[in-house]
Structure formats: structure tokens, C-alpha cells
């Protein structure tokens, strides 16, 4: 998950946040890390660029992007399906 945190910080240009400051189960949006709707789109781009994963069902977004852990689990599940 540390790589994913680095990618999030880089993709979203969070220059005042260190990757290690992001908790595995910390909420990414609103009361947590405070990300906004544009950040959500950038996270979709991140999955596509780094993991070749496209989120086809928009309703999956809130579940996938809830925390770093849920993102990591989604990536792992997707990669397992491809094997």
C-alpha cells in the first residue's frame, strides 16, 4: 500500500502531505483526506495509468475509493482476475 500512497500523492499533487501520513483506513474524501470530485477523476486516471484498470460501473466508485485499503483490495482483485 505504500506504493499506492506515493502514487496518490503524486497524481493528486498533494505537496503538503507525505505518503506515510495517509492512514490505510483513513477516508479519502470529505472528513478524511479532504479530496474532491476532481480528485476522484484523477484517481480513476491513476488506476488506468498504473494498473490498466478501468472502472466501468460508476456506482463502484464510492466503494473503491473509500480508503487506500479499499483501493488496494480492488487493484489486487482485478489483477487476480487477469491471471
Amino acid at each position: 500500500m505504500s506504493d499506492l500512497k506515493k502514487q496518490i500523492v503524486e497524481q493528486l499533487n498533494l505537496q503538503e502531505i507525505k505518503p506515510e501520513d495517509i492512514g490505510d483506513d483513513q477516508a479519502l474524501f470529505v472528513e478524511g483526506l479532504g479530496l474532491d470530485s476532481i480528485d476522484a477523476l484523477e484517481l480513476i486516471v491513476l488506476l488506468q495509468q498504473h494498473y490498466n484498470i478501468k472502472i466501468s460501473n460508476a456506482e463502484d466508485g464510492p466503494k473503491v475509493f473509500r480508503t487506500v485499503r479499499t483501493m488496494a483490495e480492488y487493484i489486487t482483485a482485478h489483477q487476480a482476475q487477469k491471471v
Partner: protein
Amino acid sequence: MQKNRSNNFIVALQNYITASTVITAGAIYKNQQVVFEKAIAALPDFLLSAYQHFEVKYPKFYKMDNLGKLGWLAAEIMLRDSGIADRYQPYDVGVVFSNANSSLDTDLKYYESTKDIASPALFVYTLPNIVIGEICIRHHFKGENSFFIFDRFDASFIEQNVNGLLNNNTLQACICGWVEVIGEQYKAVLYLVEKTGDNNQVPFDEENILKIYQLENG
């Protein structure tokens, strides 16, 4: 000068420049005095250096495009310690900006990004008036705002437009001026215009608008 009719007399209402900021050619001027200078060629590096120098804490700054950073920082420096939020209601303060190249600087960067995966973060800055939104969000301004595109700075138009907004009571205060970025060329000249000035009041007229606009030329 905008004129209003009052008791059958035509009254010319005088408004005042109560603060100004100029950012250009590696220097920042507040109220016509240099407050920051750094010989850095790249605009993003210069703006980041100024952001750090003034000890601003606003993480969204990093996400803005260069036009947004330039205009936002100019407003931040001009309005710091101005007490504007205490003196006016949100709908009383508006913003009128202008430039020559709209958001072209970011438009080109966004176009480049579309050759791979288009960047949503860049796309949201492909309108010039986004910088106005960033300033309004920061300072909670909700008054009327406009962004005009001219070949060159038009002091006469800004004078007439802003005086009109103030004199017909659409606004009680207005942040106006020029915010331009194209490549490594940049210039921001912002004026805070109010209906009353203090002891250092500068009448908001074409002569004074141009004097501040041309500040770096001595």
C-alpha cells in the same frame, strides 16, 4: 466616470483604489512597494517561492494552473490584513478581471495531455474565469464577476465597468485588473476598489490605474 442622477443633479461618484498588487518579471509589489523579489526564470518556481515566502497555508494552491496561482496569490497578498471580510457581506464584493490570452496556456497543456489520458485536473482550468472562482472560494466572495478578453490592458474599460458596478450598488467593493500567463510571460495587476478611501486614498481613475499597471517601468 459613471454618473448617477440625484435630486435632479448629476453627481459623479468617486471610488478609490484602497490596495493594489503587481506581480511581474520576478517581483511582487504591494501598494506600489516591492515586497518580494527573486530572479527565477520559471513561473511555477517563482510562484511557489512567493507562496512559501508569504507563509500561506492553502493546499489547493498546488493544484491550480499557473493563471490560477498567479491571480490567487496576487489577491492573497493584496487582501492580507485588509479586513475586507469584516467590512462587507459576501454578495457585496465582486471580481472583474481581464487578459489577452484567456486560458490558452493551460488549454495547450490540456491538449498535450489528451494524447495520453486526458487530465481532469487540467481540464477544470481550461476557462479563464476559474481563477476568479478560486479567489471567491478563498475569501467567500459571492458578488458579480466577469472575465474580459482584450488585445491589451484597457484601463478605460475597467474604470467604466467597475465604477458602474459600484455606483449602481451592484457591488460595494471590487477586485479588478489584469491576470495574464502565456508560456513564461506573466503579469498580474490587481486593484481593490472601494467607495471610500483612507488617508492614502488613490482615486480610481484611468490615470492611476495605468500608473500602477506600469509600475515596473518606473
